[in-house]
């Protein structure tokens, strides 16, 4: 599955250019964080890697294959939880993979315990708080034992304590052997979690460097402006 090589990737829906000529190499361990202004294509890149979107041009090479040969899971900014119990929201994902009922139930209980939701197994997922919903979504992805986990702003709109809980779970999933690629707008979170930073701007990778180097010596003018809180990016309002 790794190394993952992205070459000349472009995504141009309906005369817009979201990504253009994007190159990226990722190893199979650690946490890579994608940073960049809104509209830079962070979420689109995750969706292209997951196969939910098809690229307009370019190639995604999973260690010589067109498709990943390990499991890939994704957690969205607003996870879709079914109107089922907490337990069933994880178990149905395992059921979709097949396998024995007893093993599915054991795995479900295990991951829910690890994300701190074991005491709410029978409650409706729709009644959970925002932080709990995100933990449940992480548990569902984790239950599948992904080799790569894509996280799209997993702590957006969460308070600090819920954010801390989610970050702890992300580290545990990484320790469990999953490569994590995530987007965030939270620079503090990027510094806490990331091994390396992929900085996207204007639809392509401006920098891909270790986290310390990115925050201490950003090389590209766009990254420097981003870190200094400048606002050089303009959103065009179509009339």
């Amino acid at each position, binding site marked *: 599955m790794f190394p993952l090589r992205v070459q000349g990737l472009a995504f141009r829906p309906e005369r817009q250019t979201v990504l253009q000529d994007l190159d990226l190499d990722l190893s199979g361990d650690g946490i890579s964080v994608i940073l960049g202004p809104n509209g830079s294509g962070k979420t689109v890149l995750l*969706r292209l890697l*997951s*196969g*939910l979107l098809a690229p307009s041009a370019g190639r995604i090479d999973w260690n010589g294959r067109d498709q990943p040969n390990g499991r*890939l*899971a*994704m957690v*969205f900014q607003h*996870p*879709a939880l*079914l*109107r*089922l119990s907490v337990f069933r929201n994880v178990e*149905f*994902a395992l059921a*979709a*993979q097949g396998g024995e009922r007893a093993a599915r139930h054991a795995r479900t209980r295990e991951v829910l315990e690890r994300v701190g939701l074991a005491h709410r197994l029978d409650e*409706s*997922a*729709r*009644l959970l708080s925002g932080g709990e919903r995100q933990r449940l979504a992480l548990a*569902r992805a984790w239950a*599948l034992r992904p080799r790569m986990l894509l996280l799209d702003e997993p702590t957006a709109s969460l308070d600090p304590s819920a954010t801390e809980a989610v970050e702890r779970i992300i580290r545990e999933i990484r320790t469990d052997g999953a490569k994590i690629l995530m987007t965030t707008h939270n620079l503090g979170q990027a510094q806490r979690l990331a091994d390396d930073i992929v900085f996207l701007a204007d639809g392509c990778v401006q920098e891909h460097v270790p986290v310390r180097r990115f925050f201490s010596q950003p090389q590209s003018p766009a990254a420097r402006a981003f870190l200094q809180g400048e606002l050089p990016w303009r959103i065009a309002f179509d009339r």
Partner: protein
Amino acid sequence: MTETLFEALRLVVVVDYQLLAIVALSLRVSLSALAIGVLIGVPVGAAIAVQRFPGRGALIVVLNAMMGLPSVVVGVIVYLLLSRSGPFGEFGLLFSPAAMIFAQTLLVVPLIAAVSRQIVEDAWNDYAPELTLIGVRRWDAVVLLIADCRFSLSLAALAGLGRAMSEVGAVMIVGGNIDGFTRVMTTAIALETSKGNLALSIALGMVLICLILMLNALAYGLRCWALRRVG
């Protein structure tokens, strides 16, 4: 006019036996048609919402158009199917409650399927990325989404119930409005009005409206209770 209204109220209050029999048959026919309509319409609508196949767009247009299917047209079609010379004539169902259930089912299935399709498709648009990545097969997604949208789908059932209970043309044609056998509220109202028996017509109308209100109130109450429990 006032006398007629008082007489209508008297018929309702004293629980006229004739009126009670008509109400009971109306409920039996319409609720049976609704049950069959839900069993067919909801899965069909959900399947169209989730599956992709050639001609899907055209099918949705036809399904939506069939929500306005004239009940007399359905009545004529069912009449032809069940009449002695028709393909199902040998079963002798014409002018029976079974024929009325059949006709009302044909009326409510497209309505329930069309509303269900829209409800489930909206949910599918939200869930599709995650369910696809998890590896849920489309047919399994149909089942999951029906369960997930069950409270919203109750609206489709209520729309079907309203259609069935208020319908007069089809049941008149295939039921024959036979006193004590196939006379339901709507056909009785039409008949009694033409005979000038306005008191019974108004009494039946009041009962019909009250029944529909009560069933909707019950469904609304159940929905609120369930939403508080499962969100």
